[in-house]
């Protein structure tokens, strides 16, 4: 029997400021050379568990703990975090905070320096690891100038330079666009070739973990299910129940009554053809035409018009180079693109947080330059990506009423709006709650409510689903659709492609400061090649349908168009 890389025995833990256990009677053996994925809803103890591997708990973050964690035979209670760094490397989600050197080489050198490795050997390790993650050409660059994906690759290289046998990634790809995400998983796949390398990955995105050996699903700090990845991933109901996104492809085949459930688009195509199934051309045409009719009706009343927009930051970087965009009343529009493509810069122009260097942005026919943020804020509300960048009150009520008060809305009217806004985001009865004690999705909702209470016609949401689990993401977007039905026009920025497929009417693809593609969601997702160039890819299910020559956005859509069904 192979030796355990990590062995967790009867672990219980609770944070000092919390009443409930985060980890509750958890036992697990992770084999040497294994690729284990930890999945589950938010707040189920996934990150906490990873923090035990190199002793961050109980040494850095303290709290009452029972049970033991052994890393390659060492009890982590008896070894400090820095000592364990040669055994376990950890890559965190936040790529800004974990890089601290002024150039790429020095970042990789930092770990080995701490272990007093001699200079020649450090030099060799820098070379080896930068080559491994594909960053050699950036060795003299400052980490701050790298893209998100490159920063995470650097974080991996800097940890690998200490030559650990276990690499843990705690939601390391959460903030990345789909192709950068794939880039990270290409690296992990390469690492698997090393026999003694154990990989432990916390991930929300089910489509990225098909290659794992085992998956452990967590619930309330316990093991809810543990098994071979291929097996677990086929159990869509189980995944959904535990707050993890089920895969569309096996779900489709299950509903079709197939005995084999493929996981990848390619396998799906093979089995689809073997079963001799057919998609009805006429039903598909109806679907597409009906959709086009519905959506073209929305294109009557323009609210936002952007013409030839250019923006150059004070440091000389041109973030937008000639962009046109139109937003009509009642639409749900997604803006997608690689990290750093200019989508946030573009969105910030739509409510005058940024003023064009060249070109024009008009809201209801008047330029943003002549109206200013205060005026436009009433018509176009902007929910920032990180709710913690705006929440400052001790009560949810105070936070939500802040906007109306600043705009001198009379008290009774303001109170009415707070009520409505909290109802809209599903936080009725939370008026007196402390926003900081809410979960990420709760804080996100407070942030949305505090913008809604200003009653803007247009709502811009920057990455509304990032950092939320599947239920949280769905809940957030269902709420957004509800707001849309009540009359709000919605613009959202995202790199969650399934969210685009499920919720957007129309999509703008931004690349290098320009609009690369614009169209209905279905049209956009049919252009897989162009999307790939802009670091995007449709969800697996859409890719699968593209392989069959039609573009379906969901399994239910496809089933409704099957011949003889």
């Amino acid at each position, binding site marked *: 029997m192979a030796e355990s890389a990590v062995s967790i025995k009867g672990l219980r833990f609770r944070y000092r400021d919390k009443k409930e256990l985060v980890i509750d009677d958890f036992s697990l053996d992770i084999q040497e050379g294994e690729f284990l994925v930890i999945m589950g809803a938010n707040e189920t103890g996934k990150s906490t568990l990873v*923090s035990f591997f*190199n002793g*961050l708990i109980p*040494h*850095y973050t303290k709290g009452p703990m029972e049970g033991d964690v052994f890393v390659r035979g060492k009890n982590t209670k008896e070894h*400090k975090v*820095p*000592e364990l760094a*040669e055994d376990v490397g*950890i890559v*965190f989600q*936040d790529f*800004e*905070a*974990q890089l*601290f*050197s*002024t*150039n790429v080489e*020095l970042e990789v*050198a*930092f*770990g*080995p*320096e*701490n*272990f*007093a*490795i*001699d*200079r020649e050997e*450090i030099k060799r390790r820098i070379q080896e690891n930068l080559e491994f993650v594909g960053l050699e050409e950036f060795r*003299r660059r*400052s980490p*701050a100038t790298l893209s998100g994906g490159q920063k995470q690759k650097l974080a991996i290289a800097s*940890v690998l330079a*200490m030559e650990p046998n276990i690499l843990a990634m705690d939601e390391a790809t959460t903030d990345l666009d789909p192709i950068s995400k794939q880039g990270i998983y290409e690296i992990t796949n390469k690492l698997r070739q090393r026999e003694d390398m154990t990989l432990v990955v916390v991930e929300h995105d089910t489509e990225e973990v098909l290659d794992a050996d085992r998956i452990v699903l967590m619930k309330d700090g316990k093991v809810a299910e543990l098994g071979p990845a291929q097996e677990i991933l086929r159990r869509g109901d189980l995944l959904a129940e535990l707050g993890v996104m089920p895969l569309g492809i096996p779900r489709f085949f299950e509903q079709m009554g197939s005995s084999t459930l493929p996981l990848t688009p390619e396998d799906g195509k093979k089995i689809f053809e073997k079963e001799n199934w057919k998609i009805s051309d006429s039903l598909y045409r109806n679907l597409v035409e009906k959709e086009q009719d519905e959506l073209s009706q929305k294109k009557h009343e323009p609210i936002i018009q952007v013409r030839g927009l250019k923006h150059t930051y004070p*440091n000389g970087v041109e973030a937008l180079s000639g962009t046109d965009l139109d937003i009509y009343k009642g639409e749900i529009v997604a803006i997608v693109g690689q990290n750093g493509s200019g989508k946030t810069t573009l969105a*910030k122009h739509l*409510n005058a*947080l940024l003023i064009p260097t060249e070109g024009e942005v008009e809201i209801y026919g008047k330029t943003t330059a002549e109206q200013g*943020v*205060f005026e436009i*804020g009433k018509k176009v*509300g*902007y929910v*920032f990506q*990180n709710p*913690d*960048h*705006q*929440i*400052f009150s001790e009560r949810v009520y105070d936070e939500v009423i*802040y*906007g109306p008060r*600043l705009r001198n809305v009379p008290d009774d009217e303001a109170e009415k709006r707070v009520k409505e806004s909290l109802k809209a985001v599903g936080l009725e009865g939370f008026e007196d709650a402390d926003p*900081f004690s809410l979960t990420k999705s709760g804080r996100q909702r407070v942030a949305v409510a*505090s*913008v809604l209470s*200003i009653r803007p016609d247009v709502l811009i949401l920057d990455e509304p689903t990032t950092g939320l689990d599947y239920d949280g993401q769905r809940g957030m977007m269902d709420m957004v659709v509800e707001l849309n039905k009540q009359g709000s026009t919605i613009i959202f920025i995202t790199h969650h492609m399934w969210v685009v497929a499920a919720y957007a009417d129309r999509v703008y693809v931004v690349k290098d400061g320009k609009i690369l593609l614009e169209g209905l969601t279905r049209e956009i997702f049919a252009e897989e090649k162009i999307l790939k160039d802009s670091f995007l890819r449709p969800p697996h299910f859409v890719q699968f349908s593209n392989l069959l020559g039609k573009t379906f956005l969901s399994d239910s859509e496809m089933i409704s168009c099957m011949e003889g069904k």
Partner: protein
Amino acid sequence: MNIDFYLDIDTVIHRFDGRTKIILFLASFLALVLFEDPLYILPIALLILLQNFLARAWMNIWRIRFLLFLLTFTSIIMWNLFASGETHLFWFVDLESLLYSIARTMLILLMIISGLNLLSTTRNEELVLGMIKLGLPYRVGFAISTSLRMVPTISTSIHTISQAQRSRGLDLEGGGILERLRKFIPILIPVFISTIRDTNVFGMALESKGFGARDDRTYYLEMNMDRSDHLVLAFCLLIIGISLYLEFAGYGDIAGLTKF
């Protein structure tokens, strides 16, 4: 928004050893505080500006021009209140106190510029290593460099957060002093909280990379004093020597100046 002052270019100043650049900074500091008379400060001023010119770091001065203007303006007036002389000019300003104010203003501006010269030409890691080689413990050096590193992070979050609040209708202009201070609360609280959170992740990442694993550590960065470093240091020593001599010989003061 980027407040990192280091300029990644290759100039004669950049090529100096980290220690040399730190010593230059300290020496400028010493030479500046010796004299009260602007005329005696002038040569040192010219040398500091020459260093800035050679380092092609003038854009960093330009970047903080508003701060420098503000300091110049307030300092030239303010120091008159703390000194008086025999030749009355107008209001509370005497010729001697004016000269003194000019000298003090030069001192402040030049110290900032000298600091900028150091930061523009020295990487954070080089600064730490320089300080350690000059005898500072590693942890102290690292703490200094970490606080320097926090500046751009905090300024970015201030920027984002004030955008978020402005889009909710916060107008920072206008209102009395108290009201203005009150308006900063919605910015300060999120900045404070997100900084604490960043620092926490930073601390975890630091330990996870083996920081403090052993008592000794190695450095990948190489530092060597060569001939040009020795020449500059010798020149520096000469200037300090002359300055000290002049000071002890009684030069460089303003005759008839009374400081309060």
